[in-house]
């Protein structure tokens, strides 16, 4: 039985995407939790955006997984939302720095994470367009 079942994620580049998303769920989730619980008053906008970023990575992980199993609709929407979030927050952090007395995950296009937050949705969209197995398109 070489056919893949919908319930089982097949092998492919999405495995790497899922791993990086899982790492960012951990990194952004822990960071936003610490920021919100210990010093939310210092930078409420930036820290709220960190929570949004963490939630987006959770949704992104599920979106990539469901796309690998053949259902790409959620991933198409989610990855564009994530890319828009990185771009909007990145631009705002440069244009209105007073809103960001401390960095959020997406500040300056994710410079604190080696710009991986900006690359991740782009790589995800490229995978959706070109890398996904034929059966999952």
């Amino acid at each position: 039985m070489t056919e893949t079942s919908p319930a089982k994620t097949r092998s492919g580049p999405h495995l790497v995407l899922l791993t990086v998303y899982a790492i960012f769920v951990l990194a952004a989730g822990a960071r936003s939790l610490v920021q919100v619980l210990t010093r939310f008053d210092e930078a409420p906008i930036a820290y709220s955006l960190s929570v949004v970023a963490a939630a987006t990575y959770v949704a992104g992980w599920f979106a990539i997984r469901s796309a690998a199993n053949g259902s790409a609709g959620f991933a198409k929407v989610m990855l564009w939302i994530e890319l828009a979030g990185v771009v909007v927050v990145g631009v705002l952090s440069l244009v209105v720095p007073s809103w960001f007395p401390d960095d959020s995950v997406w500040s300056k296009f994710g410079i604190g994470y080696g710009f991986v937050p900006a690359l991740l949705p782009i790589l995800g969209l490229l995978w959706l367009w070109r890398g996904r197995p034929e059966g999952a398109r």
Partner: protein
Amino acid sequence: MDAVTLIAFIVAGYAAFVTIAAVLGVVLRAPRPKWLDQISWMLEVLAVVLALGALASWSAGRKPESLSTFLGYVGALVCLMPLALQTMRGDRSTWSSGVIAAAALATGVVAVRVMMVR
């Protein structure tokens, strides 16, 4: 340079080596070799040594700026690679090496962060 900083540099350097080896596996489109698992577990051993060293220096009186951040990094340091290897246990495909590469790179970055925040 104290012992923990030295160990952190060793972990980061070794993690870079594992990352490059795993990426080569993906580039060459080879099934994941068993030796990649072995050198990944070796990275985990080094990460545990670093975590114990960091915790020992903390218990000896060194105070990190944010204890929760420090403990979070120490936890991530020891958990990342076993989780990646466990997830890919039944998959020897080319892309499973990519998962190891991502986990090894993250372990190296976290090792440096442990050194910075401790």
